[in-house]
Structure formats: structure tokens, C-alpha cells
């Protein structure tokens, strides 16, 4: 688990995350998502025009980029899943996040690597991110208000991040499953 600094606060013992804006590095996310992996291979994806159109149809929003940073996680030669790295803008600033996928293109977990806004850092909360786990582009439930609960006071961050995850789920579904 991530290192935490536990400090006694006035209201009792509370644990504060040990990192500032940059919460996790790529290596740390890899280990978090795939603890059994022995190797990670950069397997970046470039979408064709046809694929981009398909993604847009499946996700309900534009595919946005041609190139996507992907890592395959392997235990020996066994594929454990894919880790896709991406950035979205919250209100003004970048949110760096990663979506860890299972080989069947369902979502394993979502991690936030860096969050810079003053408000809305609640998207880092494990409880909120857990809402994505197990879902895929075909099961749906990846829209704000339609499976992912909004965060009061951080609607833009929550909705942009949810859109990003849904887009990645669509890309995974179309690229992994022929």
C-alpha cells in the first residue's frame, strides 16, 4: 500500500496522504494495479480513423487523440492487463490519471497520479474511484449521474475524469476485442 503519514489532529488520529500534487508515479501505479506483474511493456496504441469513429460511437464522445500511452502488464508471458495513462483538464488544470484494465477490457481500477486544482480533489477518494471497477464499455454505467455519482463542488473534474475513463474503456473494448 501507499506510504502514509499519520498525524494526530485535533479531532483525533487522521491519516494524511504523503504526497503533494504528484500523488503517484507511473511505476507506483503499475505496482498498485498489477502487484503480481513481473514485467511491463510499453505497448502504445495509435488509433486509425475508423477506430476513432467507432470509439466515438461506443463512448458517446470524441476519441480526442490518436496516440495513447499503454503498458501491458505481464507475469512472465501471461498478460495481466493493460494500463492506460491519460490527462484531462478539471476546471483549469491537468489531472493525470491511469486506468488499469483487465484483459477482457473491463476496468480494474482508476488511479490519480496528479491533481492540481484547489477544489475537487475528492476524485482521489478510493470510495469514489471504486465506482469504476468491474465496469466496461459494454456494461455501461460509466457516465456521471448514470452509474458514477457526482462530487458536489467538483462537477467539472468529476465529469471530465468520468468521460476520460469511459473513452479509455471504449478504446480498450475495440482494440482488445477484435
Amino acid at each position, binding site marked *: 500500500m501507499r506510504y502514509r503519514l499519520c498525524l494526530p*489532529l485535533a479531532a483525533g488520529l487522521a491519516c*494524511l496522504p504523503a504526497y503533494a*500534487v504528484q500523488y503517484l508515479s507511473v511505476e507506483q501505479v503499475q505496482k498498485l494495479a498489477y502487484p503480481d506483474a513481473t514485467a511491463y511493456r510499453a505497448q502504445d496504441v495509435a488509433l486509425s480513423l475508423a477506430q476513432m469513429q467507432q470509439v466515438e460511437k461506443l463512448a458517446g464522445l470524441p476519441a480526442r487523440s490518436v496516440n495513447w500511452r499503454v503498458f501491458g502488464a505481464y507475469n512472465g*508471458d501471461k498478460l495481466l492487463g493493460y494500463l492506460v495513462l491519460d*490527462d484531462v483538464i478539471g476546471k483549469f488544470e491537468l489531472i493525470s490519471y491511469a486506468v488499469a484494465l483487465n484483459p477482457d477490457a473491463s476496468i480494474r481500477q482508476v488511479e490519480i497520479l*496528479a491533481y492540481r486544482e484547489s477544489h475537487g480533489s475528492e476524485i482521489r*477518494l478510493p470510495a469514489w474511484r471504486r465506482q469504476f471497477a468491474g465496469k466496461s464499455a459494454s456494461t455501461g454505467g460509466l457516465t456521471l449521474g448514470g452509474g458514477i455519482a457526482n*462530487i*458536489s463542488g467538483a462537477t467539472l473534474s468529476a465529469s*471530465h475524469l468520468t468521460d476520460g475513463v469511459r473513452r479509455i474503456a471504449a478504446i480498450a473494448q475495440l482494440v482488445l476485442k477484435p
Partner: protein
Amino acid sequence: MKKNLIASAVAATLLAAPFAASAGEAELLARIDKMAAEQEQLKAELKASLQKTAVIEQKQQELASAAAPAIAAATTPAPSAAIAASGPTTIIGGYGEINYNRPSKNASAAQTDVRRAVIGIEHRFDDKTKLVSEFEWEHAIASATDSGESAIEQLYVERQFGNGLRGKAGLFLIPAGLLNTNHEPTAYYGVERNFVETAIIPSTWREAGVGLSGDTDSGLAWDAGITTGFDLGKWDAASSDGRESPLGAIHQEGQLAKSRDLSVHGALNWRGVPGLLLGGSLFSGKVGHKTEGYTANDARVTMYDLHARYTPGLWDLAGVYARGQISNTAALNLTLVGNPTPVPKAFAGWYLQAAYQAYKADDYVLSPFVRYEQYNTAKSYEALPQGLGVAPQADEKVTTVGANLKVGEGVVLKADYQKFKEDKTRDRLNLGVGFSY
């Protein structure tokens, strides 16, 4: 790229799968050889691809760093061109609203107003430090002979410390209620901001001072700070300002603010369950500032609130309770006898609101809502000799029914109707357009 993935996946699956019976061993070996050769080819292709990508990425970096600090478009995410915290950036944002009010019993009082136009400038110095500023114009024209106001709404610097703490110093918003820190027209239902959070909690409530905030992984976010407070010497018992909003009549907003008496505040907000927010705040400070010859140097303002917001599915449910108190005002009120607006002892209000995302097409989202609020800006007074005091007010009860129509992410059209229980002349139809970017 797709081929690589497929090939790798197939290869991996095949390799992981147990071998078939030995009957086709030779065949299998031949196939393995072939696949090995293919793999080598694919590896070479992959290497070439990676090199190509690296070149492209490098070019992108060069482009990005060669450009002037970008003004990022906040509505369309474009991370491939973003700088990802490599240098200082200045971001301009803002919001505004233009409102129309039509009292239903007095059409000649119908009014249209550019209620506010706000420009916000955020400048990020580095990964950890940023400046937040907000400049506001109210009622379209501010001059000596016009009714408008131009004001600094926020002006503070924020620093992230190494252990998850954030500190800020300057003029910033007090974390009370649901609306004060989240007051863009796209963030609330109804043309006008609700009464509980304008008349009781004096939104937009800002003070100058220092603050510290942080959050925990269990979803608890906390705020604390020491700031300027209110100045009871500004109370004008002959005008009705104090009845509209007691704290609004004595706020200093960082304008040559008396600071002999500073105020403290704290807030807790819990979002442990997705879609649920529970929180509260407390603010307290004396308001006499040890003024020479003033009877209310011991007076203290205390304001607290409890709030909740729950957004299951397409519903948006919210509730706020707020209460303010001003202590030690009896001697001051005695010097103000006969005036219509003495200083109240307590003022409070609460509301419940429900909104539902009823209709969505393209980027139009229609959310009808209903809100019931009850508030009283003069719930009680400290006792005065008989016959000299003023009777406490009755609670005003307001029902608001209307809808927000969101166009895209940043524009909202609003319409609502408000019915007042006590002062029925205030019943009105409201229309408004607002934006936030």
C-alpha cells in the same frame, strides 16, 4: 500497433495454455518456430514505432515549450498540447449572470440587471504555488453616480506543502454552506441565490487572513483559518440594510478592515460515500475592535452551518441550516432606541432543495427543481426596558419552483417563480442567463 497487441495477446495466451497432446508435436514445433520469427519481426516493428512515437513526442514538447505560457481552454480537454506543470501558466476564467425579475403584483417594478460580471485570473507559479484572484462588477456600471460596484472577490496565494496540507494567505472565501465557495451561476439552481445563503450566510463572504486545509483518504476535508471579521460600528439602525442581511450590513470584505479583533473559522466536509456530502462550519470573532467610547466592544459574532448534498443518479438533493448570533448588544441597542433596525441577537434559516435531470439531448440538460426555505434576519433581540424594544420578525417562508437549462458545460438558462409567505408583494417571476468558464 493493433497487430502488436493482438500478436502479443495471442502469443501470451498460447504460451500460457497447456500444450496439446503430443500427436501434432512436430507440427506444433514448426508453428512455434514460425511464431518466434514473427515475434522477432514484430519486435523490430515495435521498436521502430516507439522510435517514431518518441520523435513525435519530442516535437510536441518542443512546440509546447516554445509557445508562450498557454491559456488553456478549460471546456475542451486537450492534454496532448498541455504543458503538464513544466512552467508557470496564467489562466483566465470568469462567470456572469444577467437576471430579470418581475414581481407578480407590481409589474412596474420589473427589472433587468447585469447582476454580476466576474473575471478570475489564476496564475500558477510552479507545481506547488499559485495565485487565485477574482474581480467583480455588479449592476453593470460602477461610478460615483451609479448603483454598480466593482470589488475584489478573491485575492490569495496558495501553497501545497509536502504532507498534503494546503495553505493560503490573502482575501479568500469562507467555507460556509454550499454556495459560498461554489457560487457560479452554473453551480446553483434558480436565478437568484437562495436567501439562507445570502441573507443569513452573507455570500459572497470573503475575509482576509490565512487558512490551512487538507483532506484524508477517508473522504474528510477540513479547513481552518484566522481572518478579519465584521465591524459592528458599521451598523446603521436607521436603514433597512440590517434587516436584509445582518452580517451583510457589517461586513468589511478586506476594505480598510478593522483588525483589532480577528476571527477564526473551521469547516469539515465529508465525502466518504460517492455522491454524498455532509459538512458544517463555524465562524466566530468579536466585532467591537476596542473602539474608543463604544458600548459594544464585547459583542461577538458567531455563525455556524450544517449542510448536506446527495446526488444519487440524476437527482440532486441539498439542505442547509445556518444560524448566526451577535452577543452583548443590549447596551448598544439602548442607544439606538426608536430606530427601526436595532442589532438582532439571532438570525437563522434553513432550506431543502430537490432537482432532477429530467431531459438530456446533445449537450442540453434540463433540470427542474423545487426549493423551500425559511429564514429570519431578526429572530430575537436582547432584552430592553419595556416599551423600547422592537418585536422579533416572523420567519419568511419562500417556495421556489423552476428549472435550469444547461447548454454545454458553461452556459445556463434559468427560470423560476418564487412565492413569499409573509410579504406577498415579493412574489416574482425570475429569468436569467448565466455562464461560467
